[in-house]
């Protein structure tokens, strides 16, 4: 217990002083809000940048949906403003469609979900929840954020270069990708930077969690959000360098005409540039060696968030705290030996298909364990339906479906037919939108008070939730059916095929649902902006939660805590039978039951400074 806890007394004492002597060294605006090393500012920067890209990527999804519902028809309102290289008579052209689907996937995964789940919540939660003043490596943390905007701009700049943006899918399989134009080069550079941002962040998280925990905060007293982020950070440090290597290789193939992924004798306009001898499938191995763990990078943090939110609002300890941690570890470990399930039909040796099928089926077990433990958590709880909790419950509901569709695809022979169809599209959206994004929404509604010192409007929050949840399902559930019907993904005009013609009305239904789903997200944006200005001031611990972040002032300043933090118990002591209050914060000393307790309560209702 003691080895890992460093003396937090000093740091917190300092920060205590700080609070009263703020004007001693006032930071400039730039240092405070732009090139800040404060983890909370960096968290907000990640949040806003990622929400911006959520709108950009979402807008692209709307264009994709328009094309699938009404192929060849002019895009309403905006079609006539787009250049002739992308549209003809206002209607999307095939090359533009390929660019849109590639950029949509890239943006959503690398510039929205990862920056939100890992960047925003990692930064916001880790130091506060382990009771320390900041990250171990604040400068590195700042660099980690500042790689993201240029990366995003580079990737998007593809739209303005000759040949258009990257158009080989977010998976960028060579040889298509290796032989592509400048847009793909920009994609590679952008992804390389994003990867570095991730690695810097992850190194920092691991260091911080191992070295800077408050007194008494043993590893097994850490909230599951921190555990999940810790394991996620390990996944990032092990997986992302492999992606970086693969990207460098593809970059060299493209720029210097090496042939890592380019075989001999291609009949292609650029074929003569290559000596050949490479293996296109090597890219897939390297890419999925990172990108399968990456799907857990995207969902583990939100699983942690959901666990904390559920426990808090069910007023109940999390069910099977250690089982949850071992399940996360199991997922993380197995996550590195299942990548081949993306490649069952790729032409790799079918014997490998067998091994990857068995490992993939095993990884479904810890996912199931987590579902059962969440159900156990709300069982006999006293459940409050705050917006954060609604989103957390939605996470469970959608993850059940996403996990079940995973089993179909995990069976290699069943995957033959559904691979590269809309069944996969349904699966990824159930886990990434239904799972990760709803988990992120839960986190936003839950921690907004601590991030901004204001409460989000619950009534708008509920509206946002109900519209999103209903139209999420109406948009993505039918896609399973398209997949069963054989509808390929990434096709510009499905109705070229006779066997898909009957799906057009269904695609139109999906498109209309998607438009409403897209529009519903404006409620969230509006709510954030409105609440920042007019929101109720947040009390210190609005949800009566146990974890250390709620011991900090309503809007913590530099240094976070205004009192010494010592941890006395685990993070989930809700509804303890010996206590009148239905929660028992980690930082509250055990001896004091009478007076102290009261003062604690009153300080809570006061809110921050």
């Amino acid at each position: 217990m003691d080895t890992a806890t460093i003396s937090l007394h000093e740091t917190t004492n300092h920060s205590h002083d700080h609070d009263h002597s703020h004007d001693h060294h006032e930071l400039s605006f730039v240092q405070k809000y732009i090139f800040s090393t404060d983890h909370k500012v960096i968290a907000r920067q990640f949040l806003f940048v990622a929400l911006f890209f959520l709108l950009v990527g979402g807008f692209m999804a709307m264009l994709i949906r328009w094309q699938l519902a009404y192929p060849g028809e002019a895009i309403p309102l905006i079609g006539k403003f787009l250049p002739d290289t992308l549209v003809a008579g206002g209607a999307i052209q095939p090359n533009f469609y390929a660019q849109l689907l590639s950029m949509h996937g890239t943006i959503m995964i690398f510039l929205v979900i990862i920056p939100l789940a890992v960047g925003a919540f990692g930064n916001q939660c880790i130091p506060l929840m382990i009771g320390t003043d900041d990250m171990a490596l604040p400068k590195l943390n700042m660099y980690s954020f500042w790689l993201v905007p240029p990366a995003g701009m580079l990737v998007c700049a593809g739209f303005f270069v000759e040949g258009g943006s990257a158009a080989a899918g977010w998976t960028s399989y060579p040889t298509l990708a290796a032989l592509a134009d400048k847009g793909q080069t920009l994609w590679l550079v952008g992804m390389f930077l994003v990867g570095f941002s991730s690695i810097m962040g992850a190194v920092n998280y691991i260091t911080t969690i191992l070295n800077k925990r408050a007194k008494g905060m043993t590893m097994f007293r850490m909230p599951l959000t921190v555990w999940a982020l810790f394991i996620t950070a390990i996944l990032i440090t092990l997986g992302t360098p492999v992606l970086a290597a693969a990207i460098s290789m593809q970059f060299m193939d493209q720029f210097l005409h090496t042939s890592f992924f380019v075989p001999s004798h291609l009949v292609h306009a650029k074929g003569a540039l290559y000596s050949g001898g490479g293996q296109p499938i090597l890219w897939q191995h390297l890419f999925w060696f990172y990108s399968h763990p990456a799907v857990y990078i995207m969902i583990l943090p939100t699983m942690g968030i959901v666990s904390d939110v559920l426990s808090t609002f069910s007023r109940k300890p999390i069910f099977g705290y250690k089982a949850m941690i071992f399940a996360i570890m199991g997922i993380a470990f197995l996550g590195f030996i299942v990548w081949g399930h993306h490649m069952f039909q790729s032409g790799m040796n079918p014997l490998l298909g067998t091994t990857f099928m068995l490992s993939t089926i095993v990884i479904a077990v810890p996912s199931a364990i987590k579902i059962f433990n969440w159900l156990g958590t709300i069982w006999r709880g006293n459940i409050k339906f705050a917006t954060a909790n609604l989103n957390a419950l939605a996470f469970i509901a959608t993850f059940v479906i996403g996990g079940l569709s995973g089993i179909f695809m995990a069976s290699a022979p069943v995957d033959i037919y559904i691979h590269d169809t809309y069944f996969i599209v349904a699966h990824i959206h159930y886990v990434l939108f239904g799972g990760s994004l709803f988990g992120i929404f839960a986190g936003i509604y839950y921690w907004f008070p601590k991030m901004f010192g204001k409460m989000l409007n619950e009534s708008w929050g509920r509206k946002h939730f109900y519209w999103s949840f209903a139209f999420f399902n109406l948009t993505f559930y039918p896609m399973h059916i398209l997949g069963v019907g054989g509808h390929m993904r990434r096709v510009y005009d499905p109705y070229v095929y006779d066997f898909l013609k009957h799906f057009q009305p269904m695609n139109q239904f999906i498109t209309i649902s998607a438009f409403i789903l897209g529009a519903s997200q404006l409620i969230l944006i509006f709510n954030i902006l409105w609440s920042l200005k007019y929101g109720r001031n947040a009390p210190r611990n609005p949800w009566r939660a146990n974890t250390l972040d709620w011991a900090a002032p309503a809007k913590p300043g530099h240094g976070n805590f205004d009192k010494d933090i010592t941890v006395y118990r685990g993070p989930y002591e809700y509804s303890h039978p010996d206590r009148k209050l239905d929660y028992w914060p980690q930082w509250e000393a055990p001896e004091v039951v009478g007076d102290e307790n009261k003062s604690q309560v009153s300080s809570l209702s006061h809110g921050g400074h």
Partner: protein
Amino acid sequence: MLEWLYKDMLTFFPEGVSTYSKQLDDMFAVIYWFSVVIFFLTYGLLIAFIIKYRFNPNRKGYHFHGSNALEFTWTLLPSIVFILIGLWSEDMWTRTKSEWRVPHPDVSVEVMAYQFGWNIRYPGPDGVFGKKDRSQMTPSNPFGIDKNDPAGFDDLITMNQIHLPINKNVVVNLSTMDVIHSFFLPNFRVKQDALPGQWIKIWFNGFKSGKYELACAELCGSGHYSMRGEVFMQSEVEYDKWLDEKYSAIKANLLANPPALPTPTVEEPAKESHH
């Protein structure tokens, strides 16, 4: 538009017409019904708990940290079910995809994908594919047929249309000239990526005559969606008739313009009489 709301998901499969399509669909169906059960179980509990344990200020949650017996049960049960699914999948997997279980071919064709279409090659009247050499591949010689090999002179190449007999084991040797494509026959439940620089064997056996569609399932550029092909499954008689027509045309053509061996090496006489 709203069929998906009331119709069983399984009814949306396009008609299966290969010998293993039914088994594959059955596997899908078993996982599907398993999922339906799990779905109603978890959703039932979720909804029941949400209703039953909704907030009541006079009540407190149950202070309970979990149970090892339960953890053990719900680790073990799914493990058993999942491993059974895995073992059961294994047989179908090797049957459909493993080279050592590819049956003896009654008919062999080669397929060479390109941006954006399919070349199909039949061995010709001599029943032998001419030697191929990737270094000789060009848009007009998509298979890189060796110009020195007489067996190749009579090979038949079609574009985007495959004729095949029913009730025969068909082996397709698959590759691509440029980028990765994927050979997808929805009705046959066949899907296999084509890799540049590599040949991959797949097989199927269709039992129903008719016209079916061939699609590309791997994003291969802006024309990806347009790689539509057609598969004509015919009775043996019809198929032979079609083949005869094509082959007699080839033979007539070879007689009229005997191909000169373009090599400076030994002249080889009577190429036409090779058969």
